[in-house]
C-alpha cells in the first residue's frame, strides 16, 4: 500500500485483494488505451498541422480491416474483463457454509446489529478474524445500503425483505462502514465501524459485552407470548404446521408449487401469512406485520431454525 497518499483503502478481507487486482487490471487497460488515443491525437495534430511538410498523399477515409480490428479487439478485451468480474462476483455473492450469521437492521439514521448469541450493538459490528461472516439485513423504513470499503462489499438494505452480504476478515483492526444509499437528512451520519478481533478475543466479547439471551431463546419466549404455540403444535395436529425441521426444507404450497423455507420465507410467513399457505392448511394465521419489530422477527426465525432442519443454502435465498 502507498503510505502518505493512499489510493487504496485498507485491504482487510479475502475479497479485497481480488477486487483490487481487477481494479488494477482495468486501470492498466484504461491507461494504455487513453495514452494510445492521447498520443495518436497529439502526434497527428502536430505532424499534420496546417503547413507542415508531412506526406499527405492518398489519404484514406475508410478501411474495413481497421474497423473490424478496432471493434473485435476491444470486444475481446471487454469480454475478458467481463468474465473476470462476473466470476469474482459470483464467488463474492454466496457465503460459504459455516458462516457466522449476524442480523443487521437499518433505520433512519442508525444501524442496529444483533448477534445470534444475543449481543446487540448500535453502529458497531464486532466480528471474528478468519471466519466467514454473513450479514442478514433489512430496513425499517427506506432503502439503505451497508458498505464496508475495507472489505470491498456493499449491499442495498431494503424494507420488506432480507438482503445478505458476506465477508471474511483477514486483518484485525477497525474499519469504516457507511450507509451508501441516500436515505434522508442524516444519511451522511449513518456510519460506524467494523471491529475485527482475534477469535479468542471475539469469544470473550460475545460472552461478556452487551449480552442478553441468545436470539433463539428470546424467540422461544416470543413464540409463546404471541400465541404461535397454540396453533403450531409440535405433533402437527394444530391449525398450523409443526415447525421442527422446517428451516431449510422444501415446503409444498396450497395451489401447487414448492418453496425452500429459507429466512425470507420464514419472515414472510410471519408478517404476511396469506402470501404462501402450506398445502393442507387454511389461511387463518393472523397477520403480524406492524406487531413485531424486525428484531423480534429475527429472534423468532432463529428460534424456528433452532428446531432443526436441513440448512440448505438455497440459490438466491437467505437460508
Amino acid at each position, binding site marked *: 500500500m502507498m503510505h502518505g497518499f493512499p489510493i487504496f483503502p485498507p485491504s482487510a478481507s479475502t475479497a479485497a485483494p481480488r477486487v483490487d487486482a481487477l481494479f488494477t487490471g482495468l486501470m492498466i487497460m484504461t491507461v494504455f488505451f487513453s495514452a494510445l488515443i492521447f498520443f495518436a491525437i497529439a502526434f497527428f495534430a502536430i505532424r499534420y498541422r496546417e503547413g507542415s511538410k508531412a*506526406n499527405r498523399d492518398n489519404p484514406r477515409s475508410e478501411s474495413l480491416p481497421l474497423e473490424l480490428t478496432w471493434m473485435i479487439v476491444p470486444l475481446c478485451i471487454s469480454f475478458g474483463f467481463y468474465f473476470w*468480474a462476473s466470476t469474482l462476483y459470483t464467488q463474492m455473492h454466496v457465503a460459504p457454509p459455516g458462516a457466522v450469521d449476524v442480523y443487521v437492521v437499518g433505520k433512519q439514521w442508525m444501524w442496529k446489529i444483533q448477534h445470534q448469541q444475543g449481543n446487540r450493538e448500535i453502529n458497531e459490528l464486532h466480528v471474528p478474524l478468519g471466519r466467514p461472516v454473513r450479514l442478514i439485513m433489512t430496513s425499517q423504513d427506506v432503502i439503505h445500503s451497508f458498505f464496508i470499503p475495507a472489505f470491498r462489499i456493499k449491499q442495498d438494505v431494503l424494507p420488506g425483505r432480507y438482503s445478505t452480504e458476506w465477508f471474511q476478515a483477514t486483518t484485525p483492526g477497525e474499519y469504516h462502514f457507511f450507509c451508501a444509499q441516500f436515505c*434522508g437528512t442524516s444519511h451522511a451520519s449513518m456510519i460506524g465501524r467494523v471491529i475485527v478481533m482475534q477469535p479468542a478475543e471475539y469469544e470473550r466479547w460475545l460472552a461478556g459485552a452487551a449480552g442478553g439471551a441468545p436470539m433463539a431463546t428470546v424467540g422461544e419466549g416470543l413464540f409463546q407470548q404471541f400465541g404461535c404455540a397454540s396453533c403450531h403444535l409440535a405433533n402437527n395436529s394444530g391449525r398450523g404446521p409443526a415447525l421442527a425441521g422446517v428451516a431449510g426444507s422444501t415446503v409444498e404450497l396450497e395451489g401447487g408449487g414448492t418453496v425452500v423455507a429459507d429466512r425470507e420465507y420464514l419472515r414472510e410467513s410471519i408478517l404476511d401469512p396469506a402470501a404462501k399457505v402450506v398445502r393442507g392448511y387454511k389461511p387463518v394465521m393472523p397477520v403480524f406485520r406492524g406487531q413485531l419489530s424486525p428484531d423480534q422477527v429475527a429472534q423468532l426465525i432463529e428460534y424456528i431454525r433452532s428446531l432443526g432442519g436441513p440448512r440448505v443454502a438455497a440459490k438466491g435465498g437467505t437460508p
Partner: protein
Amino acid sequence: MSPHSITTHEHYLNAGYGPRSWLLTTDHKRIAILYMLSITFFFFVGGFFAFLMRLELLTPDGDLVSAETYNKLFSMHGITMVWFFLIPSIPSVLGNFLVPMMVGARDVAFPRLNLLSWYIYVVGGLFTLAAMIFGGVDTGWTFYTPFSSTYAHSNVIPVVIGIFILGFSSILTALNFIVTIHTMRAPGLTWFRLPLFIWAMYATSVILVLATPVLAITLAMLGVERIFGVGIFDPALGGDPLLFQHLFWFYSHPAVYIMILPAMGVVSELITCFARKKVFGYRFMAFSLLAIASVGFLVWGHHMFVSGQSAYAGMVFSALSFIVAIPSAVKVFNWAATLYKGSIAYHTPVLYGFGFIGLFTIGGLTGLFLASLALDVHVHDTYFVIAHFHYIMVGGAVMGYLGGIHYWWPKMTGRMYPEGWAKFAALVLFVGFNLTFFPQFILGYLGMPRRYHVYPPEFQVLNVLSTAGATILGIGYLIPFVYLIWSLRHGKNAGRNPWRATGLEWLTPSPPPVHNFDEIPVVTGEPYTYAGEEEQRE
C-alpha cells in the same frame, strides 16, 4: 475596427424587433436563441448549487450548511443540470438552429410545435425552480422510493410535475427533428450524404421519443403514490421499491445517451472541418450512433447491481454494458484516424473537440469499471461514479456544446469571438475540470460515498483539491459568457464561411435570412469533401 452594424442584408435577427417578434416567432433560428438564453440561465443556477456543495466539502464537518440544505443542493444540482441544461442543450440550441439548414430546408416540419416546446420548457423550468426555491427537494435527482414517495418532507410533487411538463418539450423537439430529417431533405441529399451531426440528432431524437414517456409515467405513478399512499412502490403496502428503480432507469440510462450523442455529432463536424478531411469510416460512424441508441435501452440494470436485483439479471446487464461501449470506442478511433494525413488548424472549436475525445475516452473507460460486477459492488454510490459521469457529461457533453457554440457562433451571429480569449478559456476549463474530477476517482475507490456532506478526515485533501478545481472551472465558464456577449457588438465580421467548411449551413449568409435559402440547394456529393483546398465547394 469592426462596424456596429455588420451587414446590410436582412437576416433572422433584424427581421423584426421587439418582444412580440421573438415571443411569437416560429423561426427555428430564433427559437434556438431563446433556448440558448434559457439553458444558459439554468446552467448557472445548477452551477451555483454545485459551487455551494464544493464549498461545504472543503471541510470534513458540516459547517457551511445544514444536512438538509446540503441534501437539497445536490438534488437540485442534479435535477437542474440533467433536465434543464444537458438534455436540451445541444439538441434545442444547435439542433434547432442547424437541422433545417443542414438538410436544406426552410424550417423544421412543425414550427409552431417548436415554439410550443420552448414555452413548455420555460413553464416546466420555472415551476421546478419555484419549487426548489420555496422549500427545495431532497431526494436526489433519482427519487428512489419509498423515501421519495412516503418519507421525504420536501417539495417532491411540484418538482415532479415540473419535470413531467418538461418531458413534453423534449418529445416535441425530437418529433420535429425525426420528421424533418425523414421528409424534408433537399434533392439529392440521401441518408448517407447527411452530415454526422444530423445522424446524431436523429439517433438522439429516437431515444428522446421512446424513453421520455416512460419517465413521465414513472413520475406520475410516484406522484400518485405520494399523494394517495396506495402501495405502488411502498413495500409496507405490498409494493415493490425495485419496480420504481427499473422504470426510472429504463428512461435515465438512455437519457445519458441523449446527453452524449449530440456532442459526438458536433465533434465529427469539428474534426472534419479543422483537419480539412473527410471523416474516417463514415458509415461506421453513422451506424455506431444508432447502435449506441438502441443497445443503450438494454443496459439500465447496471445502475442496480447491488439493489437486490438477481445476480443473473446483473450478469446480463453487465455483458450488455460492455457491448454498448464498443460503438463509442469505434467513434474515438475513427476521429483519431480522421486526423491522419489531414491539415490541422488549431482553432478553438477543434481544441474543444480534442478535449472531448480525451476526456470522453477516460470517462467511457471508467464506465467499464462500473460495468464490472465485482468492482461495481465496491464503487457503486461512491465518488467514483460521480467522477465517471462528470467526465462524460462535463468533459464530454459540455465541451462538445462549447465547441459547437464557438464553431457556429459566426453563422448564428455574423460575428467572430476573440480567438485569444477563447483559447485561454478552453485551457482554463480543461485544467479546472481535471482538477475537480480526477481526485474524485481516488476518493471513490477509497470509499467516500456520494451525497455525503460530512466525511472522515482522511478524505479532506482530495476534497480540497476538487474544490480548488471547481473554482477554476467556474471562472472558466464565466470567460466565454463574457466574451461571447462582447463579440455581439465588437466581434469581427465573420462573413459567410469563416472556417471554409462544407455543409449546407455555410452556403447562407451570416446571419442567415429568415427562410435560410433563396433556392433549395441540390446535393450531388458526399459530406466533408475537403480534399485539396482548390476543390472547395462554393
